[in-house]
C-alpha cells in the first residue's frame, strides 16, 4: 500500500501511451476536417490539396502507431508514403492543367 502511495501518479511509459493515443484521435479529427474540404471543394485544386493533407495525416498516424506499438516497421509505411505521396497531386494537377497525363510521341 505504501509503495503505491509513493509511486508517481503517472509513469513515463503510461504518459507516452496516453499522449500517443490522444494524438491519434487528434490526427483522426484532422482527417475529418480535411475530408470536409475534399468533399465540399469547391474547386478541384482545393480537393487535391486537402487530399494531400490527408496523406500527410496518414504519415503521422503511421509514426504514432509505431510509437504506440514500439515497432519501428510502421515507419516504413510513412517513408514510402512520403516518397510517393506527391504522385497523385502531380497527376491531378496535370489532369486539370493539360488534360493529358501521360503524353506520347508527337501528339
Amino acid at each position: 500500500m505504501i509503495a503505491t502511495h509513493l509511486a508517481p501518479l503517472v509513469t513515463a511509459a503510461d504518459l507516452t501511451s496516453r499522449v500517443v493515443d490522444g494524438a491519434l484521435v487528434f490526427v483522426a479529427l484532422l482527417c475529418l476536417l480535411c475530408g470536409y474540404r475534399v468533399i465540399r471543394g469547391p474547386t478541384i485544386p482545393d480537393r487535391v490539396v486537402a487530399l494531400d493533407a490527408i496523406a500527410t495525416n496518414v504519415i503521422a498516424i503511421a509514426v504514432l502507431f509505431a510509437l504506440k506499438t514500439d515497432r519501428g516497421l510502421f515507419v516504413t509505411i510513412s517513408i514510402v508514403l512520403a516518397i510517393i505521396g506527391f504522385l497523385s497531386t502531380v497527376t491531378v494537377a496535370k489532369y486539370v492543367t493539360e488534360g493529358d497525363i501521360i503524353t506520347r510521341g508527337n501528339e
Partner: protein
Amino acid sequence: MTLALAATVGALFALGTFLVLREDLVKVVLGLAVLTQAANVYLISMGGITEGTADSVPILAAHGAKAHETADPLVQALVLTAIVISFGMTAFLLTLSYRAYQENGTMNVTEWEQ
C-alpha cells in the same frame, strides 16, 4: 468496436450497391471500388481486431518470438492479394467502360442501342 465496424461495413456495402446500380458506367466502377473496400474491411474484421501492441503485428520480433498474441495473419494475406487484384480489375473495368463509351457514344447504359 464490433458495432462501429458492422455499421461501417453495412454502410459501405449499401453505398457501393447504390453506386453499382447507377446508369453511369464510371459510377458503377466507383461503386465496385467501394464494395472492394467494404469487403476488405469485412475480411479484416473477421480476424478480430485487438488494440495495437508490440505483439499484435503479425511480423514476429525475432525468430522464436512468442506468437499467439498477433492479429490474424491469414485474413491479412487474403486482403493483401485482394487489394492488388482489385486494382487490376478496376483498371480492366475502366478500360471496358471507356471502350463501351467509344462504341456507344454515351456513358449511360440505358441509352445504349441494342
